[in-house]
């Protein structure tokens, strides 16, 4: 394993969106899209983040890059807190931190050629020679499995999978260290999805990249990730290595989520936990543990006290009162300080 040095540390990240109402447009409430999330991403790893729609996984990804300004919390990239640096410094840092979006149809400018799309980040980060840029674009196209002659075409001339390859090439342009992948394969068909996943894995090995892989599809996340975090209603409820998470999930929500995934093998008989009801509104989340309204194991304490996100075993964080007393009483932050512990 190459999990040693933290590349990115997130402590108490919050993003509240105001709800405007009334005649005067005053703020009448807040949607707690991300509510006190902490985790660490190590160099060279793929950290998966899963959760259902509205759980705040995409907002987390965007808040890390400050594409959405976080309300509170600390994001440390290579030991530097990036939440308070100015726009110019942030722009320089984005060379190292890139993002790939879900919808390759919407994230590529239809009026630009592929060469312009991929060349733009190069230009912004100081590659001024057109010839140099051109050869780099061709090199990037070949890296992602397209051909150099594709450079003069427009996005609409490509299929969904090819467009996602262009998005990946653009993210790779400046040799980033971290790529946040926000649902990169969910708009693609199964056979194409496999091609893109394989490409992303190969690129990780080739360029020693670190990914935060955000997706709702648990099988995809399992396939690609080293560690996986599960989010529910703006909070991270469980975080551990993928094998531990899929084999011995601790949080009742994770257990229900895993049991709900239909498996294409008709011989697998599994006990299905069918959750009642829907995810509550993040504008008015339940008190205490956000999951207690749907939790099959809810206790009295769950209704009033929000469970802390603490490790139960080494490298297995969970936020659930079922494990009160078993948790090692060191906060995530302290663990990060000591580093070696994790």
């Amino acid at each position: 394993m190459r999990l040693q040095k933290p590349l990115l540390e997130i402590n108490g990240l919050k993003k509240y969106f105001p709800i405007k109402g009334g005649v005067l447009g005053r703020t009448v409430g807040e949607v707690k899209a991300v509510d006190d999330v902490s985790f660490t991403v190590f160099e060279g790893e793929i950290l998966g983040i899963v959760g259902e729609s509205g759980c705040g996984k995409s907002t987390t990804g965007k808040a890390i890059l400050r594409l959405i300004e976080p309300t509170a919390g600390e994001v440390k990239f290579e030991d530097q807190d990036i939440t308070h640096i100015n726009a110019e410094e942030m722009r320089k840092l984005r060379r190292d931190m890139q993002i790939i979006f879900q919808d390759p149809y919407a994230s590529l400018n239809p009026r630009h050629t592929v060469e312009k799309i991929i060349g733009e980040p190069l230009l912004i980060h100081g590659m001024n020679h057109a010839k140099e840029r051109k050869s780099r674009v061709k090199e990037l196209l070949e890296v992602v499995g397209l051909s150099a002659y594709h450079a003069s075409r427009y996005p609409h001339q490509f299929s969904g999978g090819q467009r996602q390859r262009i998005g990946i090439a653009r993210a790779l342009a400046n040799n980033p260290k971290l790529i946040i992948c926000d649902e990169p394969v969910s708009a693609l068909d199964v056979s194409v999805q496999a091609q893109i996943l394989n490409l992303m894995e190969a690129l990780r090995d080739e360029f020693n990249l670190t990914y935060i892989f955000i997706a709702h599809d648990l099988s995809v996340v399992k396939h690609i990730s080293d560690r996986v975090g599960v989010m529910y209603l703006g909070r991270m409820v469980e975080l551990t290595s993928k094998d531990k998470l899929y084999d011995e999930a601790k949080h009742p929500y994770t257990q229900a989520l895993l049991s709900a995934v239909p498996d294409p093998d008709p011989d697998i008989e599994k006990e299905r936990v069918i959750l009642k009801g829907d995810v509550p509104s993040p504008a008015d989340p339940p008190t205490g543990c956000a999951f207690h309204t749907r939790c099959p194991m809810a206790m009295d304490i769950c209704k009033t006290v929000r469970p802390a996100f603490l490790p139960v075993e080494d490298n297995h964080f969970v936020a659930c009162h079922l494990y009160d007393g078993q948790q090692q009483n060191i906060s995530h932050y302290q663990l990060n300080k000591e580093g070696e512990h994790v």
Partner: protein
Amino acid sequence: MSRIVLEIKNLSTHFFTDSGEIPAVDQVSLHVHKGEVVGIVGESGCGKSVTSLSIMQLVPNPPGKIVGGEINYKGENLAFASEKRMKKLRGNEISMIFQEPMTSLNPLFTIGNQMREAFRFHQKISKKEAREKSISMLKLVGIPRAESIIDDYPHQLSGGMRQRVMIAMAMSCDPELLIADEPTTALDVTIQAQILDLMRKLNEEKDTAILLITHDLGVVADICDRVVVMYAGQVVEEGSKREILKDPKHPYSQGLIRSLPRIHEREQKLYSIPGTVPKPKLGRVGCRFAPRCELAFNRCFEGNPELYVTGEGRRSRCFLYDKQEGEAINDATTEAVIGD
């Protein structure tokens, strides 16, 4: 086997566009028995949705048109039935639910108002009776506080609840056949589990036949009895759920199943089918999958394979299963498979 509710024979639906005639559905045949759940599986553009819309005569015309074939519903051919006849059947004997429930519910009317329509149209009962029946249908599909939800508007409900309302509506006149076009694709997994559970329950209790269109083989494993795999407008394979998922015969089905990341297995590198789905066009020569097929040989590029019988109730559109080809090819390809 119980009687056949729906039998489609050589159905062809073409679209007539500025850039020419597009055979979206090309000579498709399939059948559904009473009380059976049949899945149509395929990737986007394979013609699975157009097939289901053709059954209901809902293909937008122009540009789409059924150009040939039969759609036999209980012995009656619906392929060229009149609009008047179709109105009698839709929502009454055959009903349909769609992927995105928000776009299939009218945002300007209450749930009760929209549910009442089907009862009033097909059963000629009073408004009051219709309201009572609607409430009991909502309860059947597991909607809490049905008495007050019935006066809500679609936007006040969550995605899962809206899909339940759609199912309640579709089931309200006790249809013989329910066509579900990607009913859970827009929903989260925990809600998907609830909806699949509900559909299974309705299928068992009311003996409704279900034709389920999906791209998700996990959903197929969960609920279907039989599966039809489509590729580029054609049926390429047909068989029971277990046969298709465990022992697929057609190279496309094999590739599709191998390219799925599994939650219960550890694999290193994911298999992927090279290339992309071809656009349907007229006069294509050769097997449509041949350009992406690892096992393709000369004949695949020269002739059009038929659906060859490969077992009881099993058919596969691949020359490998053509008896006339003999054993020689089969031997050659088994080696190729082992070598891979």
